[in-house]
Structure formats: C-alpha cells, structure tokens
C-alpha cells in the first residue's frame, strides 16, 4: 500500500514540478508576455495537458494501481487517485482558461484601430445651389397642389411681350435689355412666358410653378449675370383674390424660412398684373429686427425686410389673350429671382460665382 502511495505522490510531485513554469506565469497573470510567447505557451500547455492527463499519462497509469491495493483500503486509495487527477486536470484547465483569455485580450488590443481616422469614402459630389433651392421650392409648391411646368428658353415676341401685355414701345422691349437671335427671336426675359403657354394648353382653372433660365443684357457684375433663374407661380380660378396671393406667398415663405416669417406687400408695377405688388419677407438672419450681433444686419441692410419679388392679379388682357374669360376667372401670379434668394441665404457677395463652376464654391453646398 505505501508503495502505491509513494508512486502516487511521485506522480503528483512530478506534475507540480513540471507545472511550476505554467503556474508561475499564471500567478503574475502573464504580465508583459508577448502575444507570440503566450500562443507558444498555450501550445506547450496543450502538449502538457496530453502528457499529464492523456491515456498514456502517469495518472491514467495510476488508475491501474487501485486494483493492487488491499480491498479494504481500495476505496480510500481510489478517492485519493481521483483527487490527484482532479487537481492535475483542474490546475491545467484553470491555467488554460486564463491563458486563453489573456491571448484573446492581447489579440483585441493588437487589432485596435484609431477610430478617428477618416472613413474610407470616395469624395461625394454636390448639387449646384440653384438646383438645391429649386428642389426645395418645387417640393413646397407641389405639396400645395401646384404643377411644375417647363418650357422654351427662346421665344417669339408674342410670348415674351405681347401676351404679357408689354406693348410695342415699352422700354422692356428694347434690344438693349433683351437678347435676340439673328432670326429675330427673343431669349426669354422672364419665365412668365411659361404662364402663357400653360394657360393656352391647360386653360382655367390652373395652378402652376415655372422655374427656369432667363436672359437679360446685363454686363456681369457682383449682382448681375446675363443669364439667371426665376421661379414664377400662377393660380387662376373662380373667385381668386389678392388675399389668396398673400396667403400663398406667405405660406410658402413660412415653409421656406420658418413659422415666424412675416411677409409684406407693397404696391408695384408690372404690365402683366393689375393690381401689382412687390413682396418682402422679414429678414431670416435678424428675425426682422434689423440688428444682428449688435450691429446693423448685413442681410437686410438694417431694414428688417428682404425684397424678394413681384406679384399681382393677372391683368385681364393677359387672361383674355389666353382665351380665359376675365369676367369669370381671376388669378394671381408671382415671380422672383433664384440667384438673389441664394445670395441672401448664403451671404454671397458675388452672384457671378453661380456660373463660374469653381469647385471651391460648388463643394460648399449640400
């Protein structure tokens, strides 16, 4: 019996001795161990586990000793063998677990990245500010029941002038303001031409918005370009009044610049509307106070109001010219320049940039 016990103790001692290097590493939590060394150690521990707990391991051999012990001591000895085995297995498993978790965390550490580096992304493009603004305005008016219309940029004098009640001899008809083709056609000087064609095509009632390019013989400077964009609105129905004009323009500007936006209508003059008005809205920068950051507001030049466009009740001559009975129908129209609106929104001091395609400019808008 003591012989067997001794053998068992020898097995345990030899395990403890060989295990020392692992337990030492475990004791100080593998501190400072390189990942490669830890992985090597794990591999060795795997081999160690096979050597000490496998079929050919001494402890497996010790199981055979149980039969050799006197029957009355066999149970006790059996327990002892089992406890030695459990200790060996336990120590190894414990170490393996720690080692694995050490390796896992070392790997995690190794794979860490600088999350503040830029995302891998091809440079995005940018829509032109004119397009961005047009989309926004079109969206608002479509939601208010308007149809978006588009039409020719080169027009006959009829559509550019006569049908708009701009008589021969009117200053606007002079070629110093209007471009003409050598064939005698006008480059439209306002998008109101679209109104006429749409009324001819659709008749009344009608509710349309016409965005587009227009042309005037202005030498380019900070506030003028010979090509620019306008948006024109038209609503003709029975019982349309100036109240509907004011309501529509105000609603649009509130959706554009916020609920607080106020509008102001002043008498104006356009040949194609009567009565006519100019419309202003409260400055979005200084909220109509005329002061911004304790100085005169630069956007509205201190007035609190921004002049935006013209409007009015469609002139009876215009309606009749399109075959709409002005005794039955009335309507309003309004129009404004997109460049000016964009210049105000972005505090842009030179609208020529709109047509220069300088990417340092284009890439600022989204």
């Amino acid at each position, binding site marked *: 019996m003591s012989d067997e016990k001794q053998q068992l103790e020898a097995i345990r001692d030899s395990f403890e001795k060989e295990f020392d290097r692992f337990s030492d590493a475990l004791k100080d939590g593998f501190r400072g161990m390189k990942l490669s060394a830890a992985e090597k150690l794990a591999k060795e521990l795997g081999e160690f586990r096979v050597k000490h707990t496998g079929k050919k391991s001494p402890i497996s051999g010790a199981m055979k000793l149980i039969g050799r012990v006197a029957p009355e001591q066999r149970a006790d000895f059996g327990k002892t063998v089992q406890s030695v085995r459990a200790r060996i297995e336990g120590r190894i498993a414990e170490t393996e677990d720690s080692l694995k978790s050490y390796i896992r965390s070392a790997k995690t550490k190794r794979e860490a990245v600088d999350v503040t580096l*830029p*995302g891998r*992304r*091809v*440079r*995005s*493009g*940018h829509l032109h500010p*004119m397009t961005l603004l047009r*989309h926004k305005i*079109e969206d608002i*008016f*479509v*939601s*208010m*029941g308007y149809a978006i219309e*588009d039409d*020719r*940029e*080169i027009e*006959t004098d009829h559509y550019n002038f006569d049908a708009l009640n701009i008589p021969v001899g009117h*200053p606007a008809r*002079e*070629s*110093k303001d209007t*471009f*003409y*083709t*050598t*064939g005698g*056609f006008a480059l439209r000087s306002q998008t109101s031409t679209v109104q006429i064609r749409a009324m001819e095509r659709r008749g009344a*009632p009608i*509710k349309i918005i016409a965005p587009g390019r227009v042309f005037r*013989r202005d*030498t*380019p400077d900070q506030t003028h370009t*010979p*090509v620019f964009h306008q948006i024109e609105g038209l609503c003709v129905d029975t*019982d*349309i*009044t*100036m*109240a509907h004009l*004011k*309501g529509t323009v105000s*609603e649009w500007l509130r959706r554009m610049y916020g609920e607080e936006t106020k509008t102001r209508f*002043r*008498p*104006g*003059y356009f040949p194609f509307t*009567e*009565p006519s*008005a100019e419309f202003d809205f409260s400055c979005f920068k200084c909220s109509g106070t005329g002061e911004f950051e304790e100085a005169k507001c630069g956007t509205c030049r201190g007035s609190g109001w921004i002049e935006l466009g013209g409007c009015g*009740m469609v*002139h009876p001559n215009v309606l009749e010219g399109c075959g709409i009975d002005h005794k039955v129908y009335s309507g309003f129209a309004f129009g404004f320049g997109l460049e000016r609106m964009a210049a105000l929104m972005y505090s842009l001091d030179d609208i020529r940039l709109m047509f*220069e*395609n*300088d*990417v*340092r400019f284009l890439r600022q808008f989204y």
Partner: protein
Amino acid sequence: MLISYNWLNEMVPVGLGAYELAEKLTLIGLEIDGVHERDGDVIFDIEITSNRGDCLSHLGVAREVSAYFDKPYKLESQIEETPSITDRVSIEAPDLCYRFTSRIVRGVKVGPSPPWLVERLEAVGERPINNIADITNFVMHELGQPMHAFDLDSLNGRKIVVRRAAKGEKIATLDEEVRDLDPSILAICDTDKPVAIAGVMGGLESGVTESTADVLLEVACFDRDSIRKTSARLNLSTEASYRFERGVDIENLVKASNRAASLMSEIAGGDPQEFSDEFPSKRKAVSVETESLEREFRRLTGIELTDAEIEGYLKGLGFEIRGASSFEVPSWRHDVSIPEDLVEEVARIHGYDRIGEALPPSRSAGEYHHLEQRKRRLRTALVAAGFDEAMSYSFVDGAAASAYSTVDEMRGDETPLVLINDPIIEGANLMRPTLLTGMIEAVHKNFNHRESDLRLFEIGRTFRGLSESSLPEEKEMLAVVLTGRESFENTSAAGRAYDFFDLKAAVETAAEAIGIRGLEFAVATEPRHLQVGQSALVRFRETIVGAVGRLESTLADGYKFKQPVYVAELDLSFLLEEPESVAVYKPLDVYPSVVRDVSLVVTENISLSKILEVVSSAGFENFEKATYVDTYTGEGVEEGERSVTIRFEYRSPERTLTDKEVDQVHSEVLSSLESTFSARFR
C-alpha cells in the same frame, strides 16, 4: 429720384417725422431706396416705377401723401396771366408736340441764385448754374414739368418753329457735344436752324448767359415715344427726357410757366410779358367705366368697401366721379385706363396690409414635371458618384464651340446653329450647341486654381435651327467630365489616376439612374474633340445618343492641359423620352454552373465586344455566358497583341453538367475563337 422732406412738408404738412413718413410712402408704392440727412433736412431716394411719371416731383409725391392722409396740399402763389396771342411759335409737327407755351421775360439780370434756391436744388442733387437755369430746374423738381430758357436775342427771327429735324442738320448741345440730327428727332428751331432737341437738351448757342437780357421760356408737352426714341438714339438721357418719356401733365403747363415767370421776376428782376399757348388739339379726358367698382374691388381684393369709401379714396387722388359708374382720370395720370387700375388705386391707399390672407381653394393635386423625378435620380446618382454639378451660360464663343462635335452632327445632321445679335460677353454670339465648351472652360478655370482632381456634370439646354419662320430646337443634354485622380473624403491621400473607363462607368451610372440599360459603346473616329483610340460613340437601341472619350490633344494643348481630360455628352431629351427599363423576374438556377477561365492572345484590333459577340451568337450547347476578367500585355505577349482573359460559364437547366461534357463544348468554343481571330491561348 430725390425728394426733400422739408420741401414736401411745406406742401403737405402731415405731422410725421421723416422716417415714419418714409415708411408710409413705401407702403403706398413709393419705394424708399435710401434716406439720408442733410443740413437739417432729410432726403428720400425714391424709386418711382416707370408707370408713375406723375410722381417725379415734389408736387407728385405731395399728391400721394395728401391722398393717403386725407389732407390738402398747397402750392406757392404765382402770377396769373391771360395768354396773349402772338405769332411767335408755330408747331409744324403736332403729332409729336401736343402743346407749346412760350413766355418772354424781359430785362433779367443773370447771376447767382439766392441761398434758399441753391439749397433746394442741392438737396435734390442739382448743381446750381445761374438764377434763370436754376429756376427752370427748381420748377421741374417742384411741379414735375421740365422747361427750357432761351436767350431771345440769339434766336434767329426771334421765333420758334417746332419741327422734325432735317437730314444733315447738326446742333451743339449744352453738354458741348455736336450731335447729328435726323427727321426722327423733334427739334425746337428758330427761323433757320435747330436751337434745342425737344424734350432732351437745349442748344449751346441759344442758352442763357451772363449777357442775356431777354428770356424766352419754353414750357411744352411732347410725344412720350418720340422723346424715348430720341434719347435712346442719341444715347442722351436727361432729367427732362426722363420725365417726358414717362408723361407730364399737359394741363399743368401754364401753371408751371407762371410759376417760373414769377420767380424770374422775383429773383432776377425780369418783367414777364407776352405769353403764347399753342395747343392744337385739346386733350380728351380719360374716363373708366365700370358697372360696379365696389363689386370689382371685392372680386379682386376680397375686401368689402362702401361706394362712398371707394369714391373718397379716388377723389383724394384727383379722380372726378361722373355718376355711379364713371371715373374721370386726372390729367397727370397716364397709367389708369381700366377698372383693375382703379382697384389698385383704392387698394394701395386703403392699404395692401389690410387685405387678408387665405389659401386658394384646391382643385388639383400637385405634380412634378413629368421628367423631373428621373432627372432628380440622375442628379442624385452622379452626386453619389462624386460629381459636382456645374452651370454655365447659354451663349458661348462660336469659334471655341466649333472644336466640338455635337450629338446631332454625329448623327449626320448639319442643321445650322443659333446666333445672337450684340453679345454682352465678347465673342459669345452662339447659343450653345453643346455643353462641352462650358465644361472645358470650367476645367481650365479650376486648373488655374490648382484644383486638378475634377468630376463635373451639367444638365442644360442646347440650341439649333436658325430660321426666321420657326423657333429653334431646344434639347436637354447631359455633359460629364473627369480628370486627375480619384479623391476621398477627409484625406489628402491621392487615389488612382482616372482613365477612359471611369468616364464610361459614370455614363453608365447616369443612364441606369434614369432607367436606361444597355447603352452600347463603339469605336469612333467622328467626334473631332475626342482623341482617336479613346473615343466611343454611344448608342441606345441603334440611335446615336452621344460620345465619350479623352479630350483630343490639340484642343487640350490649346488650354495647356498637362493631364488627360475625359468628356462625355449625352442627348438627355432623347433618353428621357425612352421608356424606363422594368425588372423581369427570372427563376433561380437549380443546377450549378461550371466555370472555365481562358486567356486568349489576339491582335490589338480585336475588340472585346467582337470576341463576346462571336461566342454568344454561336449557340453552343449549355453555354450560358462569357464575361470579361482582365487584359494583359507584357512578357509572353508579342507587341501588337494583347491577352484577354474571359470567364465562360456553362449550365444546364436539367442536370448538373459533368466535366467531360463541359470540356467538349468548351473546346468547341475555343476552336471557334482560334479560327475566327487566330487566337492563341496562354
């Protein structure tokens, strides 16, 4: 136009400060462009709309203030004189001169004006000259009536003839310019020569000087169109022509003359004598008739006013009420002729701010333009692919544009292009037939700013078809340009250099965004702006829709481009009218395919599309498809050849193919390539 607050306040005192008054004026249609203070006065810079010639004076503005505040205005007292008929004036062109008054003021002492007069003139931006000239200017700013003083002794025959100038006649005007006249111009003449250009400017020789003793004062009314044309023709715009063009008050001439004569007497010691008034055909008053102005007003403004309220407003503005339905327009108003005009008059004095706000009844659903949604998808796709949207002028330099082939030309259509008269930008006389000129200009400008990695697109109209009988054709095009290297957000790391295939990819991306699939690209030599060998025509269902390629080298050298630039232009109008391709479901494959990659060496002129066409059209058994893998030149491939790797896929819908079956058909495919293209295999 400049208006002095003090001066105005003398005519119609309303007890408001200058700034409060300015605000009110804006609200009734006299827009205040600027307000500045000056020596105890406040000067308003008022923008008068072109229909309101009657407001171009202190009297004119005073009438508006008077109507708005319902307070009378007053004018300075003046001499009253009964016209004495003389034969001093004859009007030979009564179609251009409606009325002409002349007055002789004798024994004037020409000299500097008194301080009060100088102050008034300087307040409204006039430079004092001498008391006689200053009085005419003063009365113009006071009453709105331009007038002119002649030195009576300098007039040949001491007579005035109002006639069309004769061809070849000349006059030296007060600004010391000699001007050529012609029969389109109305001239004020003495018995043998023009002494003034009617309504525009007086002559130098007949003007009042220090030595002038007797003055002939002209106060007249001329045809508005005639003055406008003369002013435009001579490129000479004056305070007088500005007012005559917009219309003066023909019934105010005598008053204005009397006022000036009174001042000449008072200030220059002159003695007003003979007065003549030539008024060949009297003015007919304009009346506006309407069944019910109250109803008309309500119909257009939504406001209910009583007849009495309406009449009150109109009377305040100088209208005469002739019964319930007729309103006589005051002689100074040239802009009122229909009931709607009366509605505006009443509304602006009542106040636009008192009109309510409502949304119109909705009888229609909103709708975008029928092509807008596809265009938005196109823009979104290109922006996502890194393109910035450009926008260029519609007119271009004709010579610069001729370097580019238009899509129409590629189709063999040589319709002439659209030219414009008098371009405002030098050389830009052509309505663009292509967007590419603008795009290349944009590239050039950006290169100058050291921006060399560019991806740009523009959607815009092009024009062609020059004819006097029909409008030009307008077509929407898409232009795409790229150059430089791939770039990334938030890093300066440079990517790959762009080449032809980046451009081709962009064009395909754009087309797919609008539902166009299956563009075909074919080797092209036609587009003169593209470099042969990197130039392709783009077709959709047999129609040429554009071209893509590298900018041709002489064109690029002209701009001193040091890096390749790739450009494409597509006929968007055509593509947007094509129906969008619609997805069709195909049942999923049941059996796996067998794949064979082959590298075949062919001469360089054999295109991939030819190779794919041969294998796809032969109808090999179980052949499913062939796709491009890559191209190789270099070691193992002779010069003039290239190696193209292609992946062949075989599949049966009924069973899994065996290697043996595939080998058999694959070798047939290879031998067909071998025999068709003399291909070798690597």
